Each structure stands twice: as C-alpha cells, then as structure tokens.
C-alpha cells in the first residue's frame, strides 16, 4: 500500500536561498535537503521502491530524477533485504545511499541487514569500514493503514549500538537533521511521521544543520517537563497551550534518540521537578521506557513524583479510526496526566 493523496512536497520549487527563513512543509523541507545534498555531493544516491519517476510514496523524492538522472536515483524491486544490503556495500565503498523504506514496517524485512550488518560492520572490522547511509522510515499511526503500515519502530533501532536514530518534529529540524544524517559516516535511521509531511513551519536558509544529540526546548515552562518525540511534540505543545495559566509546561524534544541528550533532558526536569514522557511507540519496552528511566536516574533527587509515560497502547495499531485514536496519545491524555499529578 502506498499513501493517500500525496502531500505536495515539490508543489513549490526548491526553496530560494535567502537570509530569511522560508515556510516549508516537512515533506518539502526533506525534498529541499535531498536536492541540495545530491547537488553538493555526487556520491549521494537515492534508492527505494518508486522513488524515481513516481517521486516516492510520500512525494519526498519528487523531481530528483529530472535533476539528477537515473544513475543517482532509481527504483528498486520489492526486495527490502537485498537493496538495503546493497546500500551497505555501496556505503562501505564510496557512495552515500539514502534509502526510502516507504513504510518503516518494511524495515523488518531488512533487519538482518540493518542490525547484523550495517550496525556492526565498523566494530567487527576494528574500524576499517564505515557505513554512511540513511534509511528514511515513514512511520507512525493516524492514517488508518492498520497494523502493518503504522508502527513506531524507532526504539528497536535505538537499542542496537552502531545505529543512529533521528525523530524530527518540525520542518526546520527535519531539514537540519537530514543534512546531518546524510553527512554522518554511520548508518542513520531517519523517522518521518507519515501524517506530518504536510506540517508547515519556517526553515532557516542556506546550509542549515542541526547536530545530533542536542535536545531542543520547544516551549519553556516551570512546573513540569514534557519530553515528547516526533509528532508527539505537537500533542505536547497543544496540551501546554490548553493548560496555559494553570500549569506552566516545558516541552523538550530530544530530536535524536541515539545519540540521546541525557543531560539536556535531565537539566529541564531538575528545574521543573516533574516529568511526563510522550511517545507514540507502545508503552511497554518502548522508547518511552528509556526516556523515563534516564530521567529518573539523572534527576532523581529533584523529582517530586514518578515520571509518567503517555504512549501508544500495548496493542497492534488498529484500523478503524475510533480505535486508532484511542491507541494514540492524545492532547487530552497529556492534559489529564499533568492535571493528575500531585501538587
């Protein structure tokens, strides 16, 4: 299955270089960066199913075929393990492949390649080989695509040493982090919330780069820290808005799970004394567990009460909208959790 009406990643032409930020959707911002990086470095190539002429299932690679031709961007057969392996070998021998996995769920077909091979190659060879590649993973629920097209799997990859894991929430972060990912000499899993490609926001012009491992305070506050990832940042911001005047909520976005800005997260919690973790992944054994455990470890003496987790349910992602909504963390869930905290 591919996506419903395509977000217009390339609806406007590439962003002009100006001193002012330009407003782009996340899809456009990613498209801009792919174009710029392919232009700047001819070893960058894009592969995946229907990435070339079709521009990708979510239009993120739209227009790149015209610009860079079929030797730089080409469609693969439906062979996730094989083409991921190919990307690893290409990365180890001079290219910088960017894979479009179409749905992050399909990365499960390439798990040996990603975890046994890409992640460990450098270590196993004592540093002789590097694997500079990016696997773009459209991710998450909310589009009624059901259990095999909606998972949030970032936590699985964050577990494996050798991999880096990026979970951007805004156009600016998506752009700056994708640039960093493409230039990084390691395998990077880059998660894109599939319901958020149309989200708009300002993107700094020029060579805008966001470093890995630096959390970003998306909204400052004093009473409680909400650590939120990917599109949950916006859920958290809406909750903060709803609580305006009642509770002062700080929203912190780790932006990358691996490396994780432990100190950045802990610093906020040490100030507020309370923490809620909001992540779309399943609650149990999910990314939220690491975030909660880390905070509880590094800010223990400042914590007034336990860290709460507001996460995806411990169920597969259901199809029908009423259940899918119940599966997902909502603004109400976050508001209720914060209100339910002891004072």
């Amino acid at each position, binding site marked *: *299955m591919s996506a419903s009406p395509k977000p217009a990643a390339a609806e406007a032409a590439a962003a002009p270089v100006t001193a002012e930020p330009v407003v782009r959707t996340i899809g456009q911002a990613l498209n801009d960066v792919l174009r710029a990086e392919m232009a700047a470095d001819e070893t960058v190539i894009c592969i995946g199913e229907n990435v070339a002429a079709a521009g990708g299932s979510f239009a993120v690679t739209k227009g790149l075929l015209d610009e860079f031709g079929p030797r730089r961007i080409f469609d*693969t057969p439906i062979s996730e393990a094989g083409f991921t392996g190919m990307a690893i070998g290409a990365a180890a021998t001079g290219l910088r492949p960017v894979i479009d996995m179409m749905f992050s769920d399909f990365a499960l077909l390439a798990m040996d390649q990603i975890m046994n091979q890409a992640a460990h190659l450098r270590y196993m060879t004592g540093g002789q080989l590097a694997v500079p590649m990016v696997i773009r993973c459209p991710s998450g629920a909310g589009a009624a695509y059901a259990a095999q097209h909606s998972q949030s799997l970032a936590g699985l990859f964050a577990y494996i040493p050798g991999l880096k894991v990026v979970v951007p929430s805004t156009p600016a972060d998506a752009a700056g982090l994708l640039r960093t990912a493409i230039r990084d000499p390691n395998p990077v899993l880059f998660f894109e919330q599939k319901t958020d490609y149309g989200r708009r926001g300002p993107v700094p012009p020029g060579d805008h780069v966001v470093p890995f491992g630096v959390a970003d305070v998306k909204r400052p506050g004093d009473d409680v820290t909400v650590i939120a990832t990917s599109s949950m940042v916006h859920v958290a911001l809406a909750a903060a808005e709803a609580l305006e005047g009642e509770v002062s909520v700080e929203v912190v976005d780790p932006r990358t799970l691996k490396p994780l800005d432990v100190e950045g997260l802990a610093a906020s919690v040490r100030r507020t004394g309370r923490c809620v973790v909001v992540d779309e992944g399943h609650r149990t054994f999910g990314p939220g567990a690491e975030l909660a455990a880390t905070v509880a470890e590094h800010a223990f003496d400042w914590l007034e009460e336990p860290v709460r987790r507001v996460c995806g349910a411990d169920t597969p992602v259901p*199809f029908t*909208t009423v259940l899918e909504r119940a599966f997902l963390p909502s603004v109400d869930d976050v508001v209720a959790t914060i209100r339910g905290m002891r004072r």
Partner: protein
Amino acid sequence: MSGPESTDTAASEVTAAPTSPTSPAPPTSPDPVELLRKMLLIRVFEETTIDVYRKGQMPGLAHSYAGQEASAVGVCSALRDDDTITSTHRGHGHILAKGADPVRMMLEVMGKRDGYCRGKGGSMHIADAGKGVLGANGVVAGGVGIALGAALSADRLGQDRVSVCFIGDGAMNQGVTFEVMNMAVLWQLPLIIVCENNLYGQYSPLRDTLVGELADRPRAMGMPTVQVDGMDVLAVAEAMGDLVAEVRAGGGPRFLEVRTYRYGGHHVAEVKSDYRTEDEIAEWRARDPIHLLEQRLVEAGTLTPEQVAELHDEAAAVVARAREAGLAGEVPDVAELTEDVYA
C-alpha cells in the same frame, strides 16, 4: 499481451509424494453462470468501494481488484471450503471468490464492529477463518510463508485440503517467495502459488524490476508451472481444476501464473496512472473478463441478454445492501482496543 495457456511438461519429473488418505472425486467443472455471478459481485463491490472511499465512508485505503476478477473466481471455483487461501493487499476479489459474506466485508472496509475483523484489520487484513481465508496481507509476499504452513499442516494432519497462495508479480522479487518454493518442492507439500501478473507493482512496470521470465523462477526449482490467460475465467478455472486435482492427489506443489490487469490505480486514492498509457488500459478493457464470459454465454444460448442484465442487477442489489449494512453498522467501543491482542 495476455499470454496463451501453456503447460510446462518438463516439470512433470517431480516425484510424487504419498497420496493423502482420502482420495476426493475429481472436481466437477464449475457452472459458468456462477462464475459470472461471482465476477459481477466482485466488480460491483470494487466499484462501490471506490465510491465509498471518495465519499469518505471508510477510513484508510483499499486496492481495487477490478479487471482481475477472472483470476480469483477461476481459481476459487476449483477449491473446497476447507481449502485455504492467503491473499494480498489487493484481496477483496480473492476473499469474495472464496465465499466470504459481502456484508461483513463491507462492514470491515468501513471499520465497523461487525466486520470480519471487528474493524481492527480493514481492507488489507480481511480474513474469514470459516471459509479458509487466512487473511489478506499488507506486506508484499507476507502470506507466502503462511500458505506453506497451511500446506504443511494439511500434510501432517492427514487432511486432503490444498493451500493456495495468491501473490502479485511484485512478490516474485521478495526473497521469501524463493525460500518457500524450495521448501514446498523439497517436502512435496500441497501448495499452489497463484501469481497474478498484472504487469505492475505499484508504479513500477514489471520489466523494470524483474529479469528473465517470471515463471522460470519456480521452474528452476522443479515446481511445475502453468501460465494462463487471466481474462478468460473458464481457462483459469480449467487450469486450476487440473492443478488442484494433481496437488490433492499428492503430486506436490504447483505454480500458476495468471496474466491479468488491474483497471484502476494502485489504490483507490490514485487518480491518474502516469506510469501507463490510456491505450494500454483500453486494450485490456477490450478483453474484459466479465464481458468475454457474457458474450460466450449469450452466444451459446445459456443466458439471454435479459438474464445477463438481471445478474448485473442482482450483484448491484447485493452490494447496495452490503453498503447500507456497512453504513448502518456501529463502530467498535473504545474498550475493544485491547481485546484480541492475545488468544
């Protein structure tokens, strides 16, 4: 474009496995009027689904089977209720042909509680255990291993049922398909892989992703292979009838390539198919499987044009009722989210 039926004689050297305990009577050749009825049901169901999608009466997406009806109906005409099928993302046709209830299917497509999957699966995951439908599948080639398993259990439990695995041409590039073909031949299990070659995988023409002749792949493993014109339901039914008889008698696995075409886009949200020509679509529509059979039945005097029109009305009425039932159906209660995770 649709190939002639050709039987692969070289393949007959595969050793026969011991015959199953009960030797069933050879399949009686199916009633062509019933085949027409089924094809009409599917066609109307699929046209209706597009309208249901466009009117916003369903969550998510669906992949239309229109054009391919002769495949599902011909194949399933040779099967018993206890024979199993695994299906694909493009599953409505297979499932209806296997005897599923259009009302419960439409309820599922619409995400309602009384749908086959309680609204949790949707179009891509419909199953009907009672009719031997082991599920549509959202992963390309996701059902191939499952189908092998159904063949294994038939063999080990001494049941003379046959396991049929529907896949698309795109699934011939998934590694697991080869693994399964090898094991099926190795253990001489009662599996029939039905590969619906509709010339495209999503937006990619087959020739851009698959080298050699598709059917050479099973042949290389000594899997007897038949190719059939997928617009001719009688040809499909006959070919499948023979294969089922051979397999049920313990002859080991078989491969059927059905040459067919989908009229609509890859999924219901695809408005225009950039990757294929109007001419090509028109050429295939000129050999419409429903029209072809109607012509034959009228020419042979089996049906009058009026009777044909009645069958159309009947299908329309059945699907209209299904749609009404679907619209009237209730969505699940939120509490159902956490049910069915574990048995």
